[in-house]
């Protein structure tokens, strides 16, 4: 089987996110990046499918040079091929989907995996957009998958239960937690990953449909404090305003 897995580079979920000086992007200084966790299920499912049926697994990402790190991780997990579609700045979903779809047209995969969403921008549009561009079915939020006779049978998480659906191949599977337990890269494979090639190509320039106007971090709501109601509490109030709040 020809298996394509689309992955995305996101800040580690433990990272504290700050807004950058332009007010429209995040401050990337000191951020540790990882493969978006839902995409890891996609890599694992692709690898398992290959181990069962033979074939190749290709990992592709649209991103900057820094995204080679997550492709190396994918190679250490033993995908066969890694492709970086280079775009220097952050792009909207339409741009990324268009590029992924164009690449998919080239290699003609039997199945495409991607996370149900990337955990940074959470726009949740990638599976639907790519499937639209390719004219193939998209099955979203899949937590169990069986491939047989040219068909994908998938269990989907729906509110309060499960839905079982069938789609013909090729199709897009968007992966949900529970689909599998992604493997840890083995030490020898980590060491070998550096010598495996990463194919780099320039992104196809296309319109962006959505523009970010601004970003903000929710202000911490602080509970008010009542110090008391007597004259004796005033000194304490003054002290706190002076020492803690530092406004007088």
């Amino acid at each position: 089987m020809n298996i394509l897995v689309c992955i995305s580079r996101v800040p580690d979920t433990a990272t504290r996110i700050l807004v950058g000086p332009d007010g429209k992007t995040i401050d990337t200084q000191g951020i540790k990046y990882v493969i978006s966790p839902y995409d890891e299920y996609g890599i694992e499912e692709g690898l398992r499918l290959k181990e069962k049926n033979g074939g190749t697994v290709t990992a592709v990402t649209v991103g900057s040079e820094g995204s080679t790190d997550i492709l190396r991780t994918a190679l250490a997990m033993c995908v066969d091929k890694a492709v970086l579609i280079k775009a220097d700045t952050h792009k909207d979903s339409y741009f990324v989907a268009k590029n992924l779809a164009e690449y998919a047209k080239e290699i003609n995969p039997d199945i495409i995996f991607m996370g149900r969403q990337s955990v940074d921008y959470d726009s949740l549009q990638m599976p639907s957009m790519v499937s639209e561009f390719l004219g193939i079915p998209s099955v979203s939020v899949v937590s169990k998958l069986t491939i047989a006779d040219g068909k994908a049978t998938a269990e989907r998480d729906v509110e309060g239960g499960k839905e079982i659906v069938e789609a013909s191949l090729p199709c897009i599977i968007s992966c949900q937690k529970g689909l599998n337990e992604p493997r840890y890269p083995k030490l020898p494979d980590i060491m070998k990953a550096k010598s495996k090639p990463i194919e780099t190509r320039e992104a196809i320039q296309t319109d962006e449909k959505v523009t970010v106007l601004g970003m903000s971090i929710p202000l911490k709501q602080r509970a008010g404090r009542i110090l008391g109601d007597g004259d004796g509490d005033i000194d304490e109030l003054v002290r706190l305003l002076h020492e803690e709040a530092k406004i007088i």
Partner: protein
Amino acid sequence: MDINRNFTGEQILLRDTIRKFAEEVIKPKARELDEKEEFSVEITKQMAEIGLLACFLPDKYNGCGLDYVSYIMVVEELARVDGSHAATIAAHNSLGAGPLYYYGNEEQKKKYLPKFADGYLWGFGLTEPEAGSDAGNTQTTAVQDGDYWVLNGAKIFITNASTDITLGSTVLACTGTKPGGKKELSCFIVENGTPGFTTKAMKNKLMWRASNTSELYFEDCRVHKDNMLGKRGDGFHQMLGTLDNGRLSIAAMGLGNAQGAFETALNYAKTRKQFGKPISTYQATAFKLADIDMGLEMARNYLYEVCRMLDRNENITKEGAIAKLYCSELAHMASNHCVQIHGGYGLMKEYDAERFYRDQKLLEIGEGTSEIQRLVISRMIGCFDV
């Protein structure tokens, strides 16, 4: 300094992988295994699957071919989460696989080394009830009888020697007397299950309770002469060489323990409030954390520099001793502060602080006590050459 400073991309990916593995696989079970004093075959097999039982062995023995820097990173990351599992890996690689790989002949290597990747352990039988720091005073004897050597004696505190997945141990024994009157020591490969060889897990330990520590007994245990490691009389030299390298893994355990204790203490101090403020904002707490951080920066830079020396095949007798001594004393300081910052809760098993505190203590004793390290250093700087 940037934690990724001077590391290659592969080393960073390796560290991140081990950190994730330790957090996800070991951490959820560490406290319970420690409390039950239980060695986990299941976790050890999982560690084997990603290659941790064959860290620096080359590919031809199913190993990962890690350089020493990478291997030490593995140990540090495991110790950051749990001393017991770091001990299993450090002892197996440095003391188990190490001597077989460095001193064994090709036949011996082919027989044992490839099995480690499948999840089998090997022990290093050095310490005896009467021979701790004074390892030259080994009482276990091996007497030649035709094609066999007959072993008698006992070993104590041997890591990994009596699990269900242990294949055997390298055993130091006295094979005669040298011309000067000193004991002639040689190493033997002894498989578990050899008649006359019994092992017994030691219980009621203070620390590393989820790792396996054993007593070994030899009663007329007959070992074929082909099982001698290297040449007759090389045992003492082999042992010293093994310990020189092994010290770096103990140092890594100290660094990892200190890092884990530091993070635990810092997180707690920022959330625990007394007198209306997080206790991390009081200098009494803040300065403790600053001291640990300073130690971590120094220790990390020094230890990995010594690893690079070893990767270049330079002699590290003194540097290894310094790294081991400094990192283990740093762990002592860090885990002590960690408990202190936790106050009463630090004394309770529901918190990790007390486990860091207990686990660090071995590091000042095992693979050469702190006193022996100071002896090594003072010898190397010529204190006694007068």
